[in-house]
């Protein structure tokens, strides 16, 4: 007979559930400006502190402080605010369009606007993102036309992807935006491959991979890290930790590791954690990592600490698994309001101008929406032809598909 007590099975649980009082006491937030800025060629072994802390620039007074401040000029900051406001307004309109039955599905960015909008400004034209479904800010901040995004969401006759992809699964090669997959995590290792190719060809372009906290559990994540590390690929590996993988809290995928960023350390990849709701901090860290990649110093792993304010998608109801007021309790605040306050502190912005900008942006989004809807919505108006369904599976249509197209009568 064994004298050991019976083993107990452990399943991590979030601190609170619906009906409980929101509690983020486990999110340790250092004061803005207090986390050091390492040299870009510093050895990965020296990054432990940066993989466990949170790099922040904007303090509670709206001031930009510390060694990571100062990467953006006035005009760039105003542009950044505009991009985030545009993305938020775009989301609101498309969410409504989905509720009106104009499309089947939508995923919004509420609370995470700074991550993709600020990151895009650290890249150059020709660099390539391998995004997941909550980085439309890469397109907005990259100057991609909203009407094309809407055409894709509506799967209408002007959809650049001919109605083949779920709404929001954009693809825009000329804007450095790789085709989105519904199978999570697959793009992370592909980003590494793209970066390896750039290095093989002696090019100067870099790649960025994107993954959510939940999908880091996929094997693709680990394959990406080992290949990036082995070949010192010029790639920025981004983990957006928005706390929730649909209804599953980030502690399930994270397991016993201290942070997601810390996973890079075991691969010898410099790893940083950054305040994902701080436009200035995101831009500073992304620029730092991009410079490392461009200088042939290899990959960087970045964890963006943020919060998914909205539902996972239009098919999700977060009130079933987390307190309704949790998003308000999120200690890193709203990225739009934080940048707005910073601009006001700098004397470049005001509440009046903000209100005016909101109205202008709404007009712009509505104009784009009207223009897109002239080409149809999912269930009304122009749509891609059924003949298109058979095109583009292969470069040249093979005989069996030609026969099936004839059989379908299109």
């Amino acid at each position, binding site marked *: 007979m064994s004298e050991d007590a019976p083993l107990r099975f452990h399943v991590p649980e979030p601190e609170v559930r619906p009906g409980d009082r929101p509690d983020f006491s486990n999110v340790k937030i250092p004061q803005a400006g207090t986390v050091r800025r390492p040299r870009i060629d510093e050895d990965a072994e020296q990054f432990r502190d940066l993989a466990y802390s949170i790099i922040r620039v904007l303090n509670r007074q709206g001031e930009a402080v510390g060694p990571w401040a100062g990467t953006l000029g006035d005009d760039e900051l105003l542009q950044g605010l505009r991009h985030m406001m545009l993305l938020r307004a775009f989301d609101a309109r498309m969410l409504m369009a989905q509720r009106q039955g104009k499309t089947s599905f939508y995923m919004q960015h509420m609370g995470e606007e700074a991550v993709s909008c600020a990151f895009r400004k650290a890249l150059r034209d020709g660099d*390539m993102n*391998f995004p997941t479904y909550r980085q439309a800010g890469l397109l907005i901040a990259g100057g991609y036309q909203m009407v094309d995004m809407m055409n894709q969401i509506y799967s209408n006759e002007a959809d*650049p*992807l*001919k109605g*083949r*992809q779920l709404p929001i*699964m954009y*693809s*825009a*090669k000329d804007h450095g935006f*790789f*085709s989105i*997959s*519904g*199978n999570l995590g*697959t793009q992370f*290792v*592909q*980003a*590494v*491959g*793209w*970066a*390896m*190719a*750039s*290095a*093989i*060809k002696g090019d100067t372009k870099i*790649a960025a991979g994107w993954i959510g906290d939940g999908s880091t559990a996929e*094997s*693709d994540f680990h*394959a*990406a890290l*080992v*290949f990036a590390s*082995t070949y010192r690929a010029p790639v920025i590996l981004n983990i957006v930790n928005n706390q929730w993988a649909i209804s599953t809290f980030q502690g399930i995928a994270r397991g016993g590791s201290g942070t997601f960023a810390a996973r890079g350390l075991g691969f010898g990849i410099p790893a940083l954690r950054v305040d994902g709701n701080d436009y200035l901090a995101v831009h500073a860290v992304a620029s730092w990592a991009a410079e490392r990649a461009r200088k042939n110093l290899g990959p960087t792993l970045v964890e963006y600490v943020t919060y998914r304010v909205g539902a996972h998608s239009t098919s999700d109801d977060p009130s079933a698994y987390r307190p309704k007021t949790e998003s308000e309790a999120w200690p890193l605040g709203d990225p739009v309001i934080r940048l707005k306050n910073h601009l006001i502190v700098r004397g470049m912005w005001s509440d009046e101008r903000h209100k005016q900008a909101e109205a202008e942006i709404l007009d712009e989004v509505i104009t784009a929406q009207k223009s897109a809807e002239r080409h149809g919505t999912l269930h009304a108006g122009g749509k891609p032809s059924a003949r298109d369904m058979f095109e*583009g*599976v*292969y*470069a*040249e249509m*093979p*005989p*069996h598909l030609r026969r099936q197209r004839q059989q379908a009568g299109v």
Partner: protein
Amino acid sequence: MPRKTMIEAIREAMDVAMERDDNVVVFGEDVGYFGGVFRATQGLQQKYGTSRCFDTPISELGIVGTAIGMAAYGLRPCVEVQFADYVYPAYDQIVSEAARLRYRSNGQFTCPIVVRMPTGGGIFGGQTHSQSPEALFTHVSGLKVVVPSNPHDAKGLLISAIADPDPVIFLEPKRLYNGPFDGHHERPVTPWAKHELGEVPAGHYEIPLGKAAVRREGKALTVLAYGTMVYVAQAAAEDTGIDAEILDLRTLLPLDLDAIVASVKKTGRCVIVHEATRTSGFGAELAALVQRHCFYHLEAPIIRVTGWDTPYPHAQEWDYFPGPARLGKAMIETMEA
């Protein structure tokens, strides 16, 4: 004309492709310095350098996933999965990503990759070194699936596969690497150096994907075969004395349906042979197509001769393997029907 083994022919195909196009890169487990466990990539790293031919971590998912990213950039990766049995960790990348990239991005991104892998049994590899997973790939829209049966075809087909704008699964019957298997396992292997199909032209030539080859002309019966089974079919035809026509399919996707239909309409009988397990195997697709297109010409039911629906056993390998005795029995049954 020089005679080569299938391994040498495959190596020559990669050499030719790498020489003609700087964008062709070759990588996988052990393929760099060592030249691959079957030596298919021997010498390529020395000739083209470590940025064109290199070793990878043991991660099939990583090999195929990075190849997809490279292809999206504009390279033409030709990667090796050490055994077809190891491809499953990369299956999602092949099926959900490589196969669909052109379609889902409406041609903005394409995926001209080749995934080479040794397939099939007959070398006492047990159940993890003997599998024939072709049906798992022929079921996937967007892929092409090739199975050569001799060195001459292997070189021409692989050059075509590397030049192809779409992803190609290139299954190499490892039983044929060093010589044709003439169907009877107790008989010694004839080296390719003594076989006419071991004649491999130097330099560049292509064999188009999607075209079958008639390996033996006949009037009484059509045997549909590919890879190692082409030789089993030849042995069965000799053993039974049946005037069988043997069609080597060479490419399973896209399939040369015209050649199949022409042959079966001529002979009126059809036996299908493959090494993979039977249920939902590629033979089922062939049988359905023949039934649909040749029904009024058929004089007997179509029979499938295949591996059994078990994992590939080690000690009972030759009981599992559909050899000429089993195939011959089916051919006689078909003739007597």
